[in-house]
């Protein structure tokens, strides 16, 4: 009787641990993926912004060039 009780208790404990761990694992995995995506996304955005800014500078230089060299 006492043995059975212990066995059931052990099984219940295992069930609890397993359920909790599975839930946490899924959530942690998603968190890591989100963080990585955000980080890469920021790098991508920053590089595009810098590129846009520099392109504007080149465009401005080209306009100056147009003024200085009127004939093609």
């Amino acid at each position, binding site marked *: 009787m006492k043995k059975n009780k212990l066995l059931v*208790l052990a099984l219940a404990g295992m069930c609890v641990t397993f359920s909790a761990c599975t839930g946490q694992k899924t959530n942690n995995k998603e968190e890591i993926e989100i963080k*990585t995506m955000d980080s*890469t996304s920021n790098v991508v955005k920053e*590089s*595009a912004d810098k*590129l846009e800014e520099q*392109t504007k500078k*080149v465009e401005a230089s080209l306009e100056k060039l147009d003024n200085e060299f009127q*004939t093609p």
Partner: protein
Amino acid sequence: MKRKMTIYSSLFLLAVACVLSASTFQEKGNKNGKGQKGKNDKDQSKHGNPGKDKAQGNDHAAKNAENARGKNSQGKPDKEDKVKMNGKPSQEVRKNDRRYASEYGMLGYNWSRENFKDRKSFRKQDKVTICHKFVNGSESPVSIRVSANAAKAHLNHGDVMGDCPALNDSRYSDRYWRNRSDYYNNVQYNQEQVLYSSSILDYALQRLAGSRSQLAIMQSNNTPLADIQRKQQVVNGLEENVSVLEQLIGLATNVVVNKLM
């Protein structure tokens, strides 16, 4: 007997409670995401699972796709990207850029002195929403905003206008789908910027060559020194800006190469 029944029923209730608490924990994660809804919410709830990109034949593409899905556990762009980001565009990168561009038919800019003045009207920046499908089909499609110039090319590639159809995938929270959509929107923005900047770079290099020739002719024609110096200064300024632009194009290309393939 009664006592035995009580013990068993308590154990059963305990187990049920634990299972419930585990599922609540997961749900909590989803709710956290909902709390940060933004303007793109509509897009994010409509995507499927992140897919199995490793099926791709191209290792680099698989690596990039993994990055896109957040497989880099360090939360940073992968090592290869970092290394390339510090250097000038390699031949392979420019080739990849061109390949991507030609696949999407986006190399539509061909500047001359005349149309360069009206470049803003050539570069249509109005955005439309499309459902972008990945080439190998192993990753779920994603709703992205693209410029009118790029839309046609995407449609030719099998993408469709409007948001992607809704998929019920409870494995990831709304927050995950929202961030995924933001990520691909940034990739698209970067890609469009790279293509536009590359066209400006090509035009600038062409103009630089022409200007240098003109300067040489002016020097041999005894043009006043002050004029030559002024023009030389303008040419030098353009050269410096072109050099920086070239490096930034390389950097931006490496960051996004193959990510939307």
